[in-house]
């Protein structure tokens, strides 16, 4: 193993410094993005036009915001399966609050996000303090959120529509030609990068992901960090829901279903280890863009839904086999 690795390392040492620091997973993901763009441009000349690319970036920003929360949780070595209904809760509650006059419109977005944070906190308390496996407690939270929303909406899509601020946030342009949703993703991403690389919180997240026991023994309040991270994930899922509701101009029953597996896939394709402790935000950005472009190209090629699902699965397995394999222990 070490013998085989030596030539690789020697080759690496001859590379310029900035290239050496690049994670091969992230590099592969960006390589695949360029490949996808080239393939796409063969099918349609509009594919490389700025309008089309910005449109893709806008669609990607919904997934990007949700995947940011998912990435934080995955870095801990946990998983958040409550995304579908937390997204829907955020969207529905923000629209619901907006039906209460001007104050409701102003407070609607924070209220929706607050609901997401509360659900995330429920996850966090379960995982951190009650030591319930995250896969289970987030599943239960998802079921509870679904239950509350079904009771609230009566089993149909609610009548409340997205408020003007929500629509502006998702579809407006504060800077000409740059959709607001992309700006939201950029802000969320910027904060995430800052938290992960420049604060003790970020160090603690990576530490817990590597070995929670060791992090605890080094004096980190691991339980509080885990709880906060889940709360952030819930909040970000709700932000994603608010954006989606603004984009579609109303909340719908199963609007979050399409975001659970892609968000996990985006994080993992970006080189973050599903076991936690390893990964960079740049990789997640690459993963999100990769998945969005893939879905878009397949629909440009007018492939039926069945073919799209198959290609989607094959691409994930293929890319993970390229760089996501675990080390051989024995």
């Amino acid at each position: 193993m070490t013998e085989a690795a030596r030539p690789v390392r020697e080759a690496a040492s001859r590379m310029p410094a900035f290239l050496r620091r690049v994670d091969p997973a992230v590099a592969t993901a960006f390589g695949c993005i360029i490949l996808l763009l080239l393939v796409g441009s063969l099918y349609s000349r509009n594919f490389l036009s700025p309008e089309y690319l910005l449109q893709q970036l806008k669609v990607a920003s919904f997934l990007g915001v949700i995947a940011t929360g998912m990435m934080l949780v995955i870095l801990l070595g946990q998983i958040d399966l409550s995304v579908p209904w937390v997204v829907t809760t955020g969207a529905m509650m923000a629209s619901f609050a907006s039906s209460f006059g001007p104050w409701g419109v102003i407070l609607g977005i924070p209220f929706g996000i607050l609901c997401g944070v509360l659900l995330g906190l429920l996850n966090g308390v379960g995982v951190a303090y009650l030591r319930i496996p995250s896969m289970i407690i987030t599943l239960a939270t998802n079921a509870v959120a679904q239950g509350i929303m079904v009771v609230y909406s009566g089993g149909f899509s609610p009548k409340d529509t997205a408020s003007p601020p929500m629509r502006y946030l998702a579809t407006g342009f504060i800077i000409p030609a740059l959709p607001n949703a992309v700006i939201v993703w950029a802000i969320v991403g910027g904060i995430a990068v800052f938290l992960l690389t420049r604060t003790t919180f970020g160090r603690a997240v990576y530490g817990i992901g590597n070995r929670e026991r060791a992090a605890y023994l080094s004096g980190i309040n691991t339980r509080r960090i885990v709880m906060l991270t889940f709360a952030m994930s819930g909040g970000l899922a709700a932000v994603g829901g608010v954006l989606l509701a603004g984009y579609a101009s109303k909340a719908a029953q199963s609007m979050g279903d399409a975001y659970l597996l892609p968000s996990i896939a985006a994080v993992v394709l970006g080189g973050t280890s599903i076991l936690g402790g390893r990964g960079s935000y740049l990789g997640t950005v690459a993963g999100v863009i990769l998945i969005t472009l893939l879905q878009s190209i397949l629909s440009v090629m007018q492939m039926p839904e069945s073919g799209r699902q198959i290609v989607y699965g094959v691409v994930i397995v293929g890319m993970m086999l390229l760089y996501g394999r675990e080390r051989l222990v024995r």
Partner: protein
Amino acid sequence: MKEWRFWFAEQRGTLLAIGIFVVMFTIYLTNHPAIANSGYNVATLSNIAQTAANKGVLLAFVAMAQSLVVITAGIDLSVGMTFTLTNCLASWIVVGSPLQTAGGVLGVLAVGALCGAINGAIVIFGRLQPIVTTIATGAIYFGIALALRPFPGGSVNGDLADLLTGKIFDVFPASLVVLAGVVVVVWIPFSRSVTGRGAYAVGSSDLAAYMSGVPVRRAKFVAYTLSGLLASIGGLFLTFFTYTGEAALASGNTYTLFSIAAVVLGGVSLFGGKGSAIGAIFGALAFRTIGDLLFVFNFDPLWQPLFQGVVLMIAVSLGAFGLFRVRNRLEWFG
């Protein structure tokens, strides 16, 4: 002398699941409107049992499938999609003369086992994490299901369907008999074989199992393959109940998520190496009964998802009582 203690310690989760199910089902039974109308007699009881069994066996098969993988410390997020795929396939090929039908059934089972085997091969030889692998293969299986049945439709051999969803001797639900048969034919031989014990050993500690000369790869591969097979039996039964094949994303995902919940209720540890498929079956039946409890209490069906969620939340939180036994805080971190 102390043998029964070890047996008890090993089977505690399973026994607890049986206990939960018995309590839930007793509450369900004693409040059932049919009982209130006509009292306890064989015909009423067998009708109730048939309805409950036909609802419960689908999840029971899928939960059994999930439990095999979970015992090896893996997770199968594609189990609901294998279920959907085999449902769609069965609506094409389980038709015609008895011979054709038998061939169709075998074909469906083979495809299910193949789905499981593909998962196993990617996890073992590709060295990918089960959770990532099965997300991806789940998308592939769903894609194939959608290609088979872009719109709900198809048919199934009616005689076979009626036989397997009806009652034996007009008393006993046939689907339960099949479920028991599958336990006897698949689970018991597996759990008593070297391979089956290997699956438990791998779940407890991959490395220790390897060091002790346990056939690690074979154990995992067989567990994943059997898991696919069991999911396909579930898919067959879905076809027998509905007489159609339908590739519905929501239904596949729901079965995957419910199967995890059922497995946990059934006392199978998500960390692997603990629990049994029988526990998972009772976990599944208990989970279904919880959902039906509201029906007998005449609640608005709108409240069903919330009720199910809250019960699930309470059930999983009960595990936290184990924390009181912890003497050293480092044990928190497993």
